[in-house]
């Protein structure tokens, strides 16, 4: 079952790389958050059930509920439908996603986990989710897409933490969630400001600040 979820996560990766519609990306991020949220239920039990259920519920609420809702709200406010001019096209992105998966497997084969884990695929999948998020951040020009990429990056880290290190003191995880939450929140507010100020949210046109030749671009 755990392996099934992990496989699903890989598919979500590829899907989010392939889609340029923002609303579809947000939906995929929500599914991804839900899939990661239920992972603790399928781990060999080490911690009491009550805490486990709380972690699952809080994760689901934030990752599959509040954050996607907030992204939808931001999307409606700034009124962007799709990624018009990504730096890397959809098919090339998917190919990069496959390459990222390969890289993740390679890295995790070089870094053996020094204790028993529920599934050998946890580390490579977590790394590949993070790499995917990273790739989306650098390959998309829309500010909202970059926020989505950041969320995917954090999802990968969260998967790594929750699947391997659940016994760590709870405070750290809560802090993680909270920070993700606040981070996205602040980024969302900034997106509003960008759209109000520039009447678009295309970050590739945010190029007034540079060391050389700023004059030419600033006149746009």
């Amino acid at each position, binding site marked *: 079952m755990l392996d099934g979820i992990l496989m699903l996560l890989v598919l979500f990766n590829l899907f989010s790389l392939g889609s340029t519609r923002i609303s579809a990306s947000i939906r995929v991020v929500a599914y991804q958050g839900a899939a990661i949220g239920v992972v603790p239920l399928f781990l060999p039990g*080490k911690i009491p059930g009550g805490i486990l259920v709380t972690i699952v519920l809080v994760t689901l609420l934030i990752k599959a509920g509040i954050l996607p809702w907030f992204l939808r709200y931001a999307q409606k406010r700034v009124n962007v439908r799709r990624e018009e001019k990504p730096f890397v096209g959809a098919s090339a992105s998917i190919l990069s996603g496959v390459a990222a998966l390969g890289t993740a497997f390679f890295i995790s084969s070089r*870094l*053996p*986990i*020094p*204790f028993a884990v529920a599934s050998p695929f946890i580390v490579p999948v977590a790394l590949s989710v*993070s790499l995917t998020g*990273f790739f989306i*951040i650098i390959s998309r020009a829309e*500010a909202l897409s*970059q926020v989505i990429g*950041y969320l995917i*990056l*954090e999802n990968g*880290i969260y998967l*790594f*933490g929750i699947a*391997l*290190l659940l*016994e*760590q*003191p709870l*405070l*750290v995880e809560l*802090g*993680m969630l909270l*920070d993700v939450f*606040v*981070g996205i929140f*602040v*980024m969302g507010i*900034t997106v509003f*400001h*960008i759209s109000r*100020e*520039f009447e678009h949210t295309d*970050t590739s046109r*945010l*190029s*007034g*600040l540079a*060391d*050389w030749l700023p004059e030419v671009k600033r006149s746009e």
Partner: protein
Amino acid sequence: MAILLFLAPFAAGLAAFVIKSDRFRRRLLFSVACAHAVFSLYLCLFPSGGEDYRWLWFGLDALGRYFTAVFSLLFLCASFYAVIYLKEEKSRPREKKEEGLLFNNAPEAAFTGCLLVFLASMSLLALSRHFGLIWIAMEATTLVSAPLIYFHRQRSSLEATWKYLLICSVGIALALFGNLFLAVSASGQGPGTEISIDRLLGPGVRLDPLWLKAGFIFVLVGYGTKMGLAPMHTWLPDAHSEAPSVASALLSGALLNCAFLAILRFYQLCLANGLGPFCRELFLIFGILSMAVAAVFIIGQSDYKRLLAYSSVEHMGILCFAVAVGTAYGSMLQAANHSFLKGALFICAGNILAGFRSKKIADVRGIAHIMPWAGVLWFAGILAICGMPPFGAFLSEWIILKAAFSFGNLWLPAVYLFLLGVIFIGMTGTGIRMTFGVPSIPGGKKSFLSLLPALLLLLLSLFLGIYMPAALDVAVSGAAALLGGQG
């Protein structure tokens, strides 16, 4: 008691958001800064008071005390300047010369509140003994400093804020990966081992070296982004040039050091587990790369706030270089000097900007004629930050040079000296052109009060350069001893 260093500014920061009276809020900012500086300086110089302080995951060791004292002193001077700056911002017409657009400033309450919470989160970082907590504090500094950069509600500062948020958040995310790797490497100690410094530096603790190495790489790149190490420094010149000068001074002088502190915490673990040489190699690469990148961009720079920003990149490189060649003592001393001098320079830059209304180096000529004090302090500051005696940066850079010579490889001191030389020429050339010559504007304002904090900071660095009190020496050596002492 040391927890007050975090709690007091945090509470005051929250209060500042709701306080209606401008005067009261400004007084609150300044008095909290005063109390914070006095208390942290006391803890640093007379450590018996807080040495055994331990409560949950909080504690202050020599390293934390030293860094707290440095950024607290800087914050005190910056807050004094902030009070004057905020008063002037309220009264002057809001217009930016370069774009000719009207713009609004963020509400003053939010700015003051963010400043105080910023101080609180840096204190939290210095107080933290748990790597998760360090990470949370680091993230908190990013989030509360973003509104500081976006104080002038205009396009360019928005662009800078966006870059800052995105790049630093990604850096912080990588650092979180580093922390998780650390937890994996500590898993040999039994399930649920907490990743706190005291637990992991405890007797008989062996960490898995492979995961610890991987963790250090992630932490160095992650927090290194925040620290402004090349090639992850790209947010830094934009943020420093677009933020109001108070915020630039704090970002550059306090925040970058704090990110360095977070890396050093991880380095402590690596040292205890015999990974010192591995880490120092990485420090060396990033250090030299940062200095080289800074040198390239300083030479052709056309904006004087960006010039200062690149100088910060250079100094962060020097800090790493110093640790790499084995003189943690020099690195500590350099960190303090950089903080004070860069604070002074940014405050001068703020004054120059207010007088000349331009950030372009080409538009600023003859500061010394129009604003004599600003001219003198600006030029002295530039000389000082380039390592001119008798200022403190000369002493620390000299110690680092000596260590580099005794490190065994003659290439290191040669490269170090060459880069310092290039930067010296680039910066002083600009400084001379800006300070002397025929003034480019008819007259300026002659406010000495807003330059007072810059003067104080310069004097502090001068003091560090010519006289080292025994208590301070003990404090610096104590901090350095935690990083493997002097090589």
